[in-house]
């Protein structure tokens, strides 16, 4: 019988290839499970992977190839926010639905949103709103930040300031020129750490990620930034690739956030997923693996709801769809296509049962509490 073709576009090469590889693992697991269980609407799933290399023009070429050459029925992917934001306006030309699983920029379900694009993962505003809620409970007087010097870092700080001010009007923030935005290629964070330690701030929002975060944590630890005098919130600190690399060098007691935490949820769905993943790859699933995995199940749910794999009908089915994923139930908001999904934060802790730092305690924020309203998102489809 006819197969259903799904195209995945992730960063498979270059400095951030790890993200694409995680996603690929998650996707392949989902494909194997779904096919073993009879496919989608009776069609076996055939997966096509393309490399975005993290560059917008390459990503768009990859998408075009999947749609026009491979003739896929559905698209899943995109890691980088910049890539996602610039690629999204071209999706209507391809007339194929796309679920974004990693890129966090609010804009793809905001200012540049369109009928064809959905997102199942936590976006930047949801994550930072949770951080602001956490921050409001501390007795920090003045906040500063260190984040990568591109939209993600700057927006994280902007939104954090906006949300926290609304919750706790007394909170203080260092002005823009006193916070630290190291360029993305930085490997030596000492000057920035020095800048933070020199400032009067007693709370730090860290929005670095990946290799930057690893370098920062190690160097900051040596310089004594985590000596307990400051409150540190790390928005993407609970990413498994970071925790794995750092091992026991990850300080305990830091507040870290993530888009998916494999121990955050006791549901059967989650346990099955974690076990299946661990069994297949010998690893704990990262948020990116979960994203790709969940997106395919989301597609499955929509196609089954629509009773067809016709692209337009699947889109109609996706709008407002609620689906049970390992992370919990998510709902794709029909107005802007952003998933309403719970957000996990937690404190790093050592546990002999795990080779990496885990989160204890865990703090779950309900989707309704952290997701900005549709009006705020700025989406006008």
């Amino acid at each position, binding site marked *: 019988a006819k197969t259903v073709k799904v195209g995945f576009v992730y960063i498979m*090469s*270059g*400095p951030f*290839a*790890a993200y*694409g*590889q995680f996603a690929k693992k998650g996707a392949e697991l989902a494909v194997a499970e779904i096919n073993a269980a009879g496919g989608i609407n009776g069609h076996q799933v055939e997966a096509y992977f393309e490399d975005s290399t993290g560059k917008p023009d390459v990503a768009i070429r990859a998408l075009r190839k999947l749609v026009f050459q491979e003739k896929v029925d559905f698209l899943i992917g995109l890691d980088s926010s910049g890539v996602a934001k610039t690629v999204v306006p071209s999706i209507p030309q391809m007339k194929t639905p796309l679920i974004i699983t990693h890129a966090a920029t609010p804009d793809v379900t905001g200012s540049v949103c369109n009928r064809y694009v959905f997102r199942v993962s936590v976006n930047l505003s949801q994550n930072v709103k949770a951080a602001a809620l956490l921050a409001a409970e501390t007795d920090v007087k003045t906040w500063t930040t260190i984040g990568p*010097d591109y939209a993600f870092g700057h927006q994280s700080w902007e939104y954090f300031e906006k949300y926290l001010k609304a919750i706790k009007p007394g909170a203080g923030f260092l002005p*823009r*020129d006193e916070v*630290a*935005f*190291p*360029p993305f*290629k930085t*490997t*030596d964070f*000492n*000057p*920035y750490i*020095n*800048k933070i*330690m*020199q400032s009067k701030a007693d709370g730090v929002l860290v929005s670095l990620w*990946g*290799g930057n975060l*690893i*370098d920062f944590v*190690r*160097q900051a630890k*040596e*310089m*004594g930034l985590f000596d307990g005098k400051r409150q540190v919130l790390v928005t993407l600190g609970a990413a498994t*690739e*970071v925790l*794995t*690399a*750092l*091992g026991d*060098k990850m300080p305990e007691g830091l507040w870290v956030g993530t888009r998916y935490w494999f121990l955050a949820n006791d549901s059967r769905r989650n346990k099955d997923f974690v076990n299946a993943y661990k069994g297949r790859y010998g690893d704990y699933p990262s948020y990116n693996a979960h994203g790709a995995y969940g997106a395919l199940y989301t597609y499955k749910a929509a196609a089954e709801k629509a009773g067809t794999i016709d692209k337009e009908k699947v889109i109609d089915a996706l709008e407002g769809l609620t689906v049970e994923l390992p992370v919990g139930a998510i709902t794709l908001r029909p107005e802007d296509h952003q998933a309403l999904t719970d957000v996990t934060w937690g404190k790093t802790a050592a546990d002999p049962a795990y080779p990496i730092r885990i989160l204890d305690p865990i703090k779950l924020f309900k989707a309704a509490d952290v997701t900005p309203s549709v009006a705020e998102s700025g989406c006008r489809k």
Partner: protein
Amino acid sequence: MESFIINLLNGLSWGMLLFLISLGLTTVFGVLGVLNFAHGSFFMLGAYLCMQVMHIVPSFWLGILIGPLSVAILGVLIERVLLRRTYGRDISFQLLLTFAILLILDDAVRIIWGPGYHVVEPPALLSGVFTLFTRTYPVYRLFLVVAGPLIGLSLWAFFQFSRWGKIIRAAAMDREMAEGIGIRVPLLFTAVFALGSWLAAMGGALAAPHQSLAPSMGERIIIESFIVVVSGGMGSFPGAFVGALILGLFESFGTVFLGSVQMAVPYILLAAVLIVRPHGFFGREV
């Protein structure tokens, strides 16, 4: 004051690391006339091989001994089999060839060690911190401040004063004539390329305890070392030293004073130097 000193140390230690790496680049350019795009990949390999050695025998010192040495051997192979076929051709060919080598090495590293991040621990001897007024500062960074100039100085002395150093400089100036006085130039070139690769790898091994290892980590370093080498003057030792120092200090103090221009600092520096001194600080007019 205290912050100033810390910034100074930061600038110095980063600068010295850059110096080591640029030294290899500038030596290879000066002697072979090849601008080696894959230099950053040797830097990366140095770090990974150091880590690999430490997985087998947990000694950092053994790591920085064996890692860079293995890269030097790889350098020998690359020079013998590939590079020597492009001598005398336009520089763009060498850029392209070494770029191809970069692609291969970067991907090979990803395939062998996986796409994820790794960290390497500094040796126990250098792992602590010392107190500076009210703050602490890692000992390892101080070690870098010392190790860079030490290696650089001994190499410089070698090139300047030893007979072999002079022979290498002679071969750099005029390859044909060097053969004409009985110097076995092909072997010499291989040795120099191996030395250059060793320096890059040494830089990588020394950087490993301080930055995370990931495929393509060399890409970040290569452009900065190009900038150091060119603004210092191609092929010049003192040039590489001054260039690295200035870039290190600018990047360090720039974080405090420059804000969002920070990212462009190396490029502004490069352009400024070249506008004022067309051949870099120590470059010779041709």
